[in-house]
């Protein structure tokens, strides 16, 4: 299976934001961990960043260790988020099939170049949400994780209310 030209790129602001944690004794094991946390928030809130919010230099060109087995779920999350963003109706089989063709590819990540570009933009969108909602950069990983959990819980609740209104 080919690796394909997929390049995961951090949001521009991510390194500075997470630097205090990365300098502390208890830090993220992987820089991809905070990329992923940004991504999760961006996808949950359906918030895309702009091209200039994404770093030129890439972080990795495939999923690192613990994320390799999550490639299907992460590709599914992207398809689902894009369906919502592009207002693809549940019964619109053709547009959904076209979307899948655009975003996925037969490689290590299950993502096409375009698919991973969208992932990078969602991560950049997520970074902004994190910065807005957890503005004080903390050097304590446990503190960040509790605040992050509050944020993702709140965003989830807001999204549910919004979709049922």
């Amino acid at each position, binding site marked *: 299976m080919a690796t394909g030209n997929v390049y995961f790129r951090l949001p521009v602001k991510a*390194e*500075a934001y997470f*630097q*205090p944690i990365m*300098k502390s004794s*208890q830090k*993220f*094991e992987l820089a991809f*961990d905070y990329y*992923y*946390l940004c991504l*999760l928030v961006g*996808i*949950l809130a359906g918030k895309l960043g702009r091209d200039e919010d994404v770093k030129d*230099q890439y972080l990795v060109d495939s999923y690192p260790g*613990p*994320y390799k087995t*999550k*490639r*299907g*779920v*992460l*590709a*599914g*999350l992207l*398809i*689902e988020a894009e*369906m919502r963003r592009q207002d693809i109706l*549940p*019964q619109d*089989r*053709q547009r*959904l*099939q*076209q979307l*899948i*063709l655009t975003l*996925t*590819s*037969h490689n290590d990540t*299950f993502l096409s170049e375009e698919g991973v570009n969208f992932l990078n933009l969602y991560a950049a969108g997520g970074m902004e949400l994190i910065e807005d909602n957890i503005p004080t950069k903390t050097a*304590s*990983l*446990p*503190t960040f*994780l*509790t605040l*992050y*959990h509050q944020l*993702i*819980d709140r965003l*989830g609740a807001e*999204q*549910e209310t919004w979709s049922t209104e």
Partner: protein
Amino acid sequence: MPEAQTKVKILGWRYENIRGLETMDVNLESQDHTPYPITLIMMPNGQGKTTTMELLLAAFTGGAEHWGRDQVLELRPPGSTANSGEFQLRLLIDGQRFVVTLELDYQTGSASYATTRIDISGGKEPGHNLPSSLKHVFKDQFVKRFIFDGELVKDILNGSKDEAEKTIRYLHNLDRLEELAVAIDHVKDDMQRERETASRTDRGLTRLRNQRDEAFGQMRQLQTRLAQLESQFNEATTQLEQRETFLQHRLAQSEQLQRRYEESQRQLETVRRDLVLKGQAAIASFREPTMANRLIFSRLNQLSSRLQRLKLPESTSRQFFTELAEEEFCVCGRPIRSTERDAILSRAESYLGHDEYGVVNAIKQEIRNSTYDDSLTDTINNLTELLTEESRHLSELRRIELEQENSGDDDVRQAAEERDVLRAKLTSLDEKIPSFQLALKTAKDNYESLQRKFNEATQTVEFIRKADKLKDITRQTSAAALRNLKATIIENTNRRIADVIHLEKISVEAIDGHLKLAGKGGASQGQSLAIAYSFLGSLFANSAFGLPFVVDSPAGPLDLEVRHEVATMLPGLFDQLILLVMSGEREAFADPFYQLAGVQFLTVVKDSSGPHCVAEIETFKKFQGGKEDI
């Protein structure tokens, strides 16, 4: 000890017409060609100690040929009419005798060398002709590590200095790898200049070079500023550690407070250990996207059902249509002409191929296998509780510190105030440094990109690539060698420390510019010096050279009570030890040497016939150096 160690011993030296020392011989031999393992030379300050160190250094390095007129004439005895002077150093190198003569011409103000290889050629030859294996390593910075100023020993443990690391680099010649990297840069520059000259008319090239140089300047400015900030940070960290050690020491004197403090600290450590474990558990849960949030889980399940309902992926794949387009007739029996063929091929694109079919099925399968439960919320709740506990313990520790400060004396209050100022300074630097690191990274990227463009323009890309690779290999080799050396040296240093410091367990944890001691306990002044000399002794034992160790004022910076401690340990560390001491240093320091066998005591005495060297222990014991010695 390395097998092929080149052994160098000093057999003695002789001054002729040298300021403060006139004409005098210093003999270190106990019997023919065998020097005493230890010689203490009492030499009053102002009477040639500094001059001796300077001449010894010059005799080893051959550097006096570059001396200026003033430097040479300064060595002429005041009022002397002598036209020349000399300094002869007698050496034993791997069993063969060498005499290096530094000849000083007081008429022209110049210095030159002559070398006598007694056991090889016998005669005196012009030039500084030590064996080639030594000549290229006996550089100034290298020799200064064994012709040693006792005052420098303090720098080995000083957090704001990098003397320990420098010493390793010089004594193990790692600096020569750095020199190689610089030489590679020079070759690169020469090559580019040559190409640039060949296309001098190209204005674009000049513009590129200017932009690159400007970017380089910016990068260097940021590097300097960052280095300053990091140095301030290291200095403040060391100072903070000192204040905290002092305050903890004072706290220990108040037993009840100390017990409370230790109990709180113990609990804090337990909480922090739990925080690490729970933090890891939380990250492991977050890494499961569907465990991170219930909505994510339900949305994915909706997607999976939707794909199921819409029968996606479709069992008819793109390959079916591409193969059909190649047939003459359709499955319905109608002929396929070019119009139909084009239409089939174009629409085939909107069907999933075999590969995509597999991908979508795998996505559906992974979604079906994913789960959601409340375990992450539970873990986060645990984390929150632990953070509250951590904060409670920290407050308790601060409260105890405050109680101690309020009940303590002025010293404690002052140390506490300084500690708070240092903590604030460190926080501020800690915030400032990352932004400089980022700015530097950007400036470096910019410089490298311009350098790449410049390389392309001067058509030296391939050459530069190879040169940079060679430089990388050089740097990596240097870093790996330093890492391995540090590990060995730390082990040997700690073994030696254990031999000389019996009452407390003190060890070197790391060499990070300076020697870092394990724990925050710190060491007394005497212990610090013992540690520093243990380090130097280990370095010498592991070096490719067995060298003499000449120290000027070894006990100079020490209080009386710690001189004895250092004097007891020094003999075991070096094969040949030469100590230049003043009479003021003798008290407490010299006693342990009087008990040892194989120690020579020399005293430079000045009488009506001029200075001469007396080899009697009694003269050494009684000698008073006069007012310049205070």
